[in-house]
């Protein structure tokens, strides 16, 4: 199926999709580099893993993600000075995640996205929105083997809150999600090598409540990573969550195997970005 280049993605949406592509690519290479023993050990249980039943202590964190997250609403943010690129960059630098935010993690520089990936990602999405500026954190990863998880963040400053809402609308569009799934599947087909196969790419909506009244929204990509020549197969999860903050988008990304990153961790990281944003004048 031919994609329609006359429907360009928003700048932030394009960057978000690119981040997901990069995460998938990195994950595929990680899987390829991992010892087969680690995957063998995990796969047999991963395949038969059951969802934990109800808790005994108190179900603090058992609320499932909402199937239909409410539309993310922006907050009123005072803008005493006109927005410009340098202020957007400074804002992003002050707000994005630090190594200290994720105990046990090590940082790796953000992978450079290729022009081809940018073009691919640009084929999905909604409105055309030009970001004034922003920035992203390094990738922070921790754990080994199937316990490995990674987090990163980014901040994009757009023209105003309306532009942000429009930019995030992709997460509630069936067509947008289907488009992402198709492109991600194709991209993964290109990424896999003789040792690793990635298949069954699915994209769905997720929402995470942030604070008493705000809602971050985004997408969850799931895929099955298989080691060629074995029966080993593990599930891969990639979450891309965005929280509107006036004319800015606060984004958190997570990648993990076997099960998604804890919702509480994602929520805490989004709340952290928001608190830092409130302390930093935009």
């Amino acid at each position: 199926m031919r994609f329609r280049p006359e429907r360009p993605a928003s700048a932030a949406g394009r960057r978000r999709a690119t981040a997901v592509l990069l995460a998938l690519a990195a994950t595929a290479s990680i899987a390829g580099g991992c010892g087969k023993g680690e995957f063998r050990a995990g796969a047999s249980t991963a395949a038969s893993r059951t969802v934990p039943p109800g808790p005994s202590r108190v179900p603090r964190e058992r609320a499932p993600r909402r199937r239909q997250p409410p539309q993310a609403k922006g907050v009123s943010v005072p803008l005493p000075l006109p927005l410009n690129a340098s202020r957007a960059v400074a804002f992003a630098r002050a707000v994005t995640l630090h190594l200290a935010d994720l105990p046990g993690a090590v940082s790796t520089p953000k992978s450079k996205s290729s022009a081809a990936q940018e073009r691919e990602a640009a084929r999905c999405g909604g409105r055309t929105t030009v970001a004034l500026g922003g920035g992203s954190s390094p990738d922070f990863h921790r754990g080994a083997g199937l316990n490995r998880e990674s987090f990163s963040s980014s901040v994009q400053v757009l023209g105003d809150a309306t532009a942000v809402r429009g930019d995030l609308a992709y997460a509630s569009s069936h067509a947008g999600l289907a488009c992402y799934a198709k492109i991600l599947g194709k991209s993964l087909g290109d990424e896999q090598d003789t040792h690793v196969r990635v298949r069954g790419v699915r994209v769905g909506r997720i929402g995470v409540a942030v604070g008493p009244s705000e809602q971050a929204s985004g997408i969850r990509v799931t895929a099955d990573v298989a080691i060629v020549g074995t029966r080993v197969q593990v599930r891969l999860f990639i979450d891309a969550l965005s929280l509107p903050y006036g004319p800015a988008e606060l984004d958190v990304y997570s990648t993990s195997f076997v099960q998604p990153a804890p919702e509480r961790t994602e929520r805490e990281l989004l709340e952290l970005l928001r608190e830092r944003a409130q302390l930093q004048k935009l």
Partner: protein
Amino acid sequence: MSEQRPDRAAARGRRGRRRNVRLGVLLVILAAAVAVLILRGGNGSDRSPASACASESAAPEVRSVRPSELSKLREELDRLVPDRIARLYEEGTVSSTAAWNDQEPAPPAVSPTARRPDAYEMRWWAPNGDDVVGDIFVFADAGAAKRYLALATSTRCRSKASRALASTTPEAVNLSWLNPDGAAQADVYFARGPRVYRLADAPAGQHGGEIRPGSLAHAFATLDVLGCLLPGARCRREGKSAVPA
């Protein structure tokens, strides 16, 4: 006007008596409430007895450290329960009172340079529904760790608590109690140098405010296995886990 004075005085008197009656009723209610609190003591399933007791016992506080120093604690705990076995649902720093009040771990600090308590906790849902917790508390020295261990494993500050020496980990204490949510919980504590380790398992379906005989045996067996994965546990092989009576 002078004729109205007796009425006014009478009215004032009635109002005064009513005020006295109301005050008396309030005092009675207050006294009853205080009596209930006193009588319930540490046997209730509410949070107040444990919290008050923890503060009264003046448990030593953990050190304060740079955030980067928390990494090694997290790495040790992360090895306990692989993701393919259980589901990690929350983690973060805790204070030393977590042994009693079961507080949730704290999120990252807004300032990335802020010093943090040198104690880390991770919580998992096991496939069988058990709520499994691992903590490492780091104190200024081994003496403070031992004092903390003694206080944390005391049965006095806990509801329906009993203790026994663990069979697999030297100098470890197995503790059964009703946690602040009224759920039966198995804890294993041991100290190594300035560190105190706690592993906890609150089995599924046991939050009825009672600890049934033998109901925590499986939880203690699980904790014995997990505890031996911690550095310095120096476990010995024993047949059965020690379950407090």
